[in-house]
């Protein structure tokens, strides 16, 4: 019994816009399966009296005051991008999708 199917890996690859070959799909499906099976072993230890958590530290209500702070220098920011134009980041065209 595998923890993740090859079809699920292919679906995830599509969502992440990764163009994987058939060989890569096999390869990653195997690797991810090992990782997920290892993580699943943790669930075996967790019993009903141990609640699930999304954070390792028992903290709540960590906030900052609503104060504006200086920003990054635009020239520096844009210089780090693969492409820019008109003071904006230039990205490849997006097809068949509108958010």
């Amino acid at each position, binding site marked *: 019994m595998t923890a993740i199917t090859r079809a699920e890996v292919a679906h995830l690859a599509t969502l992440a816009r990764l163009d994987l070959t058939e060989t890569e799909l096999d390869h990653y499906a195997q690797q991810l399966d090992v990782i997920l099976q290892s993580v699943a072993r943790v669930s075996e230890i967790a019993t009903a009296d141990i609640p699930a958590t999304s954070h390792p530290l028992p903290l709540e*209500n960590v906030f900052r005051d609503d104060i504006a*702070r200086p*920003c990054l220098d635009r020239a520096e920011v844009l210089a780090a991008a693969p492409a820019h134009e008109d003071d904006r980041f230039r990205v490849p065209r997006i097809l068949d999708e509108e958010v």
Partner: protein
Amino acid sequence: MSTAMPETIPYDEALNLFEPVFGLEVHVEMGTNSKMFCGCPTAFGGEPNTQVCPVCLGLPGSMPVVNRTAVESTIRIGLALNCTIAEWCRFARKNYFYPDMPKDYQISQYDEPLCSNGYLDVTVATAEGPKVVRVEIERVHMEEDTGKLTHTGGATGRIHGADYSLVDYNRAGIPLIEIVTKPVAGAGHLVADVAKAYVAELRDLMRALGVSDVRMEEGSLRCDVNLSLNKPGSPMGTRSETKNVNSLRSVERAVRSEVERQSALLTAGGRVVQETRHFHEDIGRSTSGRSKEQAEDYRYFPEPDLVPIAPSAVWIDELRSTLPELPSAKRSRLEAEWGITPFELATVVNAGALDLVEETIEAGVESAAARKWWTGELLRSANDQGIELADLPVTPAHIARVEALVADGSLNDKLARQVFEGVIAGEGDVDEVIASRGLAVVSDDTALLAAIDEALVAQPDVAEKIRSGKVQAAGAIVGAVMKSTRGQADAAKVRALLLERLGVTDA
């Protein structure tokens, strides 16, 4: 098939055949000083990519920290909408691959919204008088706004046909509140009005709470409209979701156009496709976007970089005590206090003049005069300059002073307008403008008589008519005197003096 099926059925006809169910998702940008998870400023209209930092650019190693004021604003909105405030809730990552979010995910809330299960009562006008409709609220949650994309190349500037896109991340990370209604059924022919009234009421509520200035033209309030139709007695139909509905008028038009489109489809034996549609302000209708059937898969999971929010009862009570009088209660009170109709009050509200009129009345001005100035002369001036009424240099105290001077006869209506013109032009306060422009009603009889004599000499034929008893001809002379005194005379007084001068009695 040669018989052409109609693409739409007229709204009222459609609603005789079908029952509408609508739901609204409203996004409101908070008016905080800084962004949701970082200290970048949120001002609208900045130079592209000047309000960005490692957090809102999603640079490796950066960590978000929650803006306390944004949380407080959300709780206050939840309380004003009669919601339950969660005792404990978390943020979630909404994963999607689109360059408006540089992290490839948006921090939002998923199955643990901060506020849930509330309602908002809205009033719509009907032929039988005002009708109150309760709109139930499913949830109110926090998230971050996305960056702004400009599609370049291609013919239309839209995505299809674009060669590439340019991104400005100034807006990315601005606190955004999403308010989602439960499905609203039973509105019948009022469905478009109820949807519009709900958004208008929300806008007024946000302004009253002071959590957002809600400038719809700047995109600080945006709606998605869900709508379905069903035959009476049948289960709810398949819904469409119309996005980009960004003005009150568009909310109404989006609902109407979907009613008209879906009813034609259903009547012709077709079915409504569950899809996202895009509303176009320019043509007033929507076009088909992506089909929802290619299921969205956002792979939500609890945001590991943020800790849970657990508002204490004490904190919630403190926030509750900061709630102002809510718009609906305020409207009822003011209608009664000012003795005006809901329609007259709506004029004041729509002008953005409610607080100003209220303060002006508190400063001692009659309700009618306060409303007249703010929704007339001053509103025109603000509109001409493209600014809000509140941003004019005129204050309630100025109006009180002018009205006092009108009452004691020192100013007339025309001069009062010139005073405000001067105040708006930055010439000083009311008395300074009067002094520098020499604005005062000429009450000196000798000066007025001299002006009258001059006018009589200039128009001897008119003078003769009046002498012969044609009192209505006096208007020409009064007009000439008002002109020569630059409007600074009391017209009634000029008329009386003129008739006395000519020995004519008013018939």
